[in-house]
């Protein structure tokens, strides 16, 4: 069962109206929409645009600019592996290849069964306790090949 709601225009409107007292509310709205539906559905764009009196192109432009906003549902588990320099110095390239092999997906891909999405992330600020990862929002530091195996097994459950 998904922990996310099914898209509805009414729910989207509610989310927008809950943020209307903010200055520059579009990013907080998109975060909230993604929190509710798991991604930013194409159908949400015209609703948000109309409520904020923006063009659809403007909203679309913002959704596509930021790496955080997804335009399709993600896997049930999301494993983000840091690919930035501090983690590179500790062998994150090899660990990433190991995870890709174990999960059968590449960075930026979701498995066909919707089980897992593997993502690159550029720095979690855990640069003295790397290599670092985030699995379903939880931080993991000092990654080793054994810990990668553990994370991949967690995704399998």
């Amino acid at each position, binding site marked *: 069962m998904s922990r996310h709601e099914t898209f509805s225009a009414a729910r989207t409107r509610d989310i927008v109206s809950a943020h209307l007292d903010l200055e520059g509310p579009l*990013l907080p709205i998109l*975060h909230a929409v993604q929190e509710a539906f798991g991604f930013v559905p194409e159908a949400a764009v015209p609703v948000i645009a109309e409520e904020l009196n923006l063009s659809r192109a403007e909203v679309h432009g913002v959704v596509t600019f930021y790496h*955080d906003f997804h335009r399709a549902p993600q896997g049930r588990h999301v494993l983000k592996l840091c690919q930035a320099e501090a983690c590179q110095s500790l062998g994150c390239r090899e660990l990433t290849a190991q995870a890709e092999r174990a999960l059968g997906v590449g960075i930026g891909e979701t498995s066909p069964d919707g089980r897992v999405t593997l993502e690159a992330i*550029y*720095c979690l*600020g*855990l640069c*003295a*306790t790397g290599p670092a990862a985030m699995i379903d929002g939880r931080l993991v530091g000092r990654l080793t090949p054994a810990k990668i195996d553990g994370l991949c097994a967690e995704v399998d459950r």
Partner: protein
Amino acid sequence: MSAAIRVFVPSDAAARACGADEVAIALRAEAQRIGVDIDLVRNGSRGMLWLEPLVEVESAGVRYGFGPVEASDVPGLVAAGLFTAPASVSGPLAIGPVAEHPFLAAQQRLTFARCGVTDPLSLDDYIAYGGYKGLQRALALGPLGIVEEVTKSGLRGRGGAGFPTGIKWKTVHDTPGAQKYIVCNADEGDSGTFADRMIMEGDPFQLIEGMTIAGIAVGATRGYIYCRSEYPDAIATMRAAIVTARRAGFLGARVYGTDHAFELEIREGAGAYVCGEETSLLESLEGKRGLVRAKPPLPAHKGLFGRPTVINNVLSLTAVPHILADGAAFYADYGMGRSRGTMPVQLAGNIRYGGLFEIAFGITLGELVEKIGGGTASGRPVKAVQVGGPLGAYFPPALFDTPFDYESFAKRDGLIGHGGIVVFDDTADMALQARFAFEFCAIESCGKCTPCRIGSTRGKETVEKIIAGEDVDRNLEVIADLSNTMKFGSLCALGGFTPYPVTSAIAHFPDDFRRSARLPAAAE
């Protein structure tokens, strides 16, 4: 009855990523099992990150440290007397009195003085350890007095650009406007940096106080902290601290019972590195694509929503309460040349003693890497260190005599940036690092200017040709030319500084770019 024994387990994200939550649970369970009353405080991190999770137990006013502790170590430590006689517990995890640890004793902690010592969300702790003294003095000095004090302290922007903070504040103070803003840049995207995250998680009221003082100085009544989404813990801590500060009257319509109003809100980024560039950040706060703006106009004149805006880094703003509390002269006494005060240096990557080391400007790079940091974690020789994030130059050990200050690094074609140092051992391939510099720029470019948008992709392709051994000399010339175009033709530091890691890697490690020419088989 004796009072509860105070036990500290950091709630810092780095400690949590290494199992601090599980350690806290195990400590509570053991205490309950043996019937000892403990008061478990989730403090910030002391910054000795190789020791995280670092458990501290207080006995007769001294805090004894143990680290790195895993949950499975807890029963043994408790059986050895962790709670009842921490001073006498020996073994590889015992580090003795934490405050006397050489890594901490060698520092000059001003901004990070409280971090790791106090409960981050306790306003009482904050005030007991000198918090809000800066605001009191600021209120007595008045706006121009504050600006003068910050100017005299010599504080320069800690985000990397090093622009004098006092001059920025004076400009906003002098610019008329019905609404002005204080914006805190907490979009700490540079790999190898985590000082902003640590201070927001470990001493959030200090940032609130710094922003409040800035607001009073320039006449701004609203503030925003723009924090990257990769820092969920920092966002949660800041949010909770803002609520507490507002309830206690330190934020709101009448700050500290005065006529000054200051409202503060935290906003979450959405995974765009370029939003650490100040004008891109302002666009993002306004709810737009994070496209870099051309300057002028300066944000000080036309910033957020076109209004006069102070935009400062977390470390600049958190230095302010101290400068006001102890005076500009006290702060300016630290440092060298035009780099005054202290810098929270972050030792990261393949380093034995990684962590946060706050010290006056002027210490050499070699002292930081070899003496303080203990060389590599892998035990192999240091090959290169990248200073200042993905846009910073790679330095070989031959340049380890470079003093850590803005001008000395600039003289050697580098930058200190946000103070992050990432160490690489001799297994690093600098051609791959140069390729990554271009690749990262291509991923993160906002796309507004051509040198950055196109140059990054062409640069990556050209380094790939070099790695494959294709026409190496000619392609190195192409890189040199392209780097020049990006450096002088880009709109902001993303495109403008990407050449630093590339050209430094080529200059200091030329062999890595000719590997395949020497060994044709390696190109396969």
